[in-house]
């Protein structure tokens, strides 16, 4: 027995990698899925958007890039689906250089096929990317035109119908931020929500790494938060069950679909932690004998 314990304790880390690869790959290949029950946080985000009236301006800040697309694109798609279904005016922008491509991808995936009646410039606009990190947030909170003179297509902002009457971000009824890190949700809370607590409301979707650092802002500085792919799957379930009849398209099930590999991989992790600790205790016992 002690021979097996010693061999397992010295097991090459590559076998663990292979196990993890199998734990993620097999559920993907066999499309293993589990039902998602929305938690209070996902409901808070959903309710905040539900409270808005058709035509209300909403700022969708998509601060992420392909590196975190796996976690964040399901919640970004769900946000766009929800806002478009509620007939809200969507103002997209990004503090990430590759953010405009993420915005464009969501427009192509969600708005163009499912909401062809929405008109660019009247119902939604892509203001694009501006470098300057939190400096951008600070400036556009008081004067949007100081940084955004044109949209991402080069059209003068004053010639875009839905931008007329919008002087700064305080005119938005809600900020929806999808954040992969810096600059992102923390900077929006610091420079947009906290200085204007009575005027600016915000909900966010963040990566798993960020989530523990953002929880302290809830609920006073942040109305609700979707944490990682789990939060995305819950919110996706809420939006699709409310606004889509029948089976939703594949892109509206990405979050739920990715929870299959998550669950199996987490079970493996728990098993490995238990196995590692058991081996440690067994070795300790062996040394005492």
């Amino acid at each position, binding site marked *: 027995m002690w021979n097996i314990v010693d061999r397992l304790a010295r097991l090459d880390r590559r076998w663990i990698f292979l196990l993890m690869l199998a734990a993620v790959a097999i559920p993907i290949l066999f499309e293993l899925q589990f039902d998602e029950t929305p938690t209070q946080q996902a409901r808070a985000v959903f309710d905040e958007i539900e409270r808005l009236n058709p035509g209300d301006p909403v700022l969708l800040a998509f601060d992420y890039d392909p590196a*975190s697309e*796996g976690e964040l694109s399901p919640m970004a798609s769900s946000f766009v689906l929800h806002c478009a279904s509620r007939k809200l005016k969507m103002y997209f922008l990004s503090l990430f250089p590759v953010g405009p491509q993420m915005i464009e991808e969501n427009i192509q995936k969600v708005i163009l096929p499912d909401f062809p009646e929405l008109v660019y410039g009247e119902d939604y606009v892509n203001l694009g990317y501006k470098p300057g990190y939190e400096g951008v947030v600070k400036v556009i909170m008081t004067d949007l035109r100081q940084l955004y003179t044109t949209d991402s297509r080069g059209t003068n902002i004053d010639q875009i119908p839905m931008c007329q009457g919008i002087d700064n971000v305080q005119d938005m009824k809600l900020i929806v931020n999808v954040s992969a890190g810096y600059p992102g949700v923390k900077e929006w809370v610091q420079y947009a929500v906290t200085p204007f607590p009575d005027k600016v409301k915000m909900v966010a979707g963040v990566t798993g790494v960020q989530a523990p650092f953002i929880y302290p802002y809830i609920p*006073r500085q942040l109305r609700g938060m979707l944490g990682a792919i789990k939060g995305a799957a819950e919110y996706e379930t809420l939006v699709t069950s409310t606004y889509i009849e029948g089976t939703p398209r594949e892109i509206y099930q990405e979050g739920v679909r990715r929870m299959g590999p998550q669950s199996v*991989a987490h079970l493996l992790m728990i098993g490995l932690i238990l196995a590692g600790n058991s081996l440690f205790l067994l070795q300790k016992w062996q040394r005492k004998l």
Partner: protein
Amino acid sequence: MQGIERYIWTLLILFLLGGAILQTVWDPQQSAGRVYVKQVEGVWVPADEIDRAAGIAEVSLLRSTGLWISALFTLCIFSFMYRDNPFYKIAEATVVGVSAAYYMVVGFWTTMIPNLFGKLFPGLIQGWAMPGLSPEPEPGSWTYVVPLVLGIMLLMRLVPKVSWISVWPLAFIIGTTAGLRMVAFLEADFLSQIENTIVPIVAWNSSGLFDPWKSFENLLLVVSVLACLVYFFFSIEHKGAVGGISRFGIWILMITFGAMFGMTVMGRIALLAIRLEFLFREWLNLNLV
């Protein structure tokens, strides 16, 4: 690594790579490793199964090459899990190089052109690069000479003899950033977080009845914050009652770190899942269900 294990790994890697190549060659649907496109109003767009069945789709050599490059780079990055190797280094260097170049170009076209030269020479920039820009100079736009001069001073870093000049704009950047962040941090993270911790220990629900669960939540929040603060208070020796509270603080911190680890794992698995989804679905067209 033992000799036998090395053979097992070599065979396993060859088996997986060989299987992938065979799938792209003998895919019954002729979809693996290929990207189909169709022409709509003179524009090439991605084609689906229906377009292929209708005979209006054709293989795009350029996009298929992109698909293969993307798949091979993913495998190159994955190869690091076995050991550091030249394939991984090539992929890593490519990512760094492409990102740096992309940031530079995006920064030039989204900041230098509209926010600096567009303010100083609006007529010239409108005629050359941004037709949407107003040709009339804004009042006070001459002040943009200051950031232009600071920018040139920063570039002096590249000339060894006068590199000291770059210290001045650098000092300006550090000073303003520190000032900006300090105020935001004090407001959003320090004062607001203290405020968020001041909650009623005896909570009442909307019907005016005692809410035991909310009360417990609030009590736990206050006690946990105080216990963690005691743990970091080193002016008193952690003995007796102080020691007990400090130990409780450690437990709270450990639970927090555990939650952070769990969320991080979730994020990393989501990233792995999306790359495997890409390899299985978009590259290999594997459909086992």
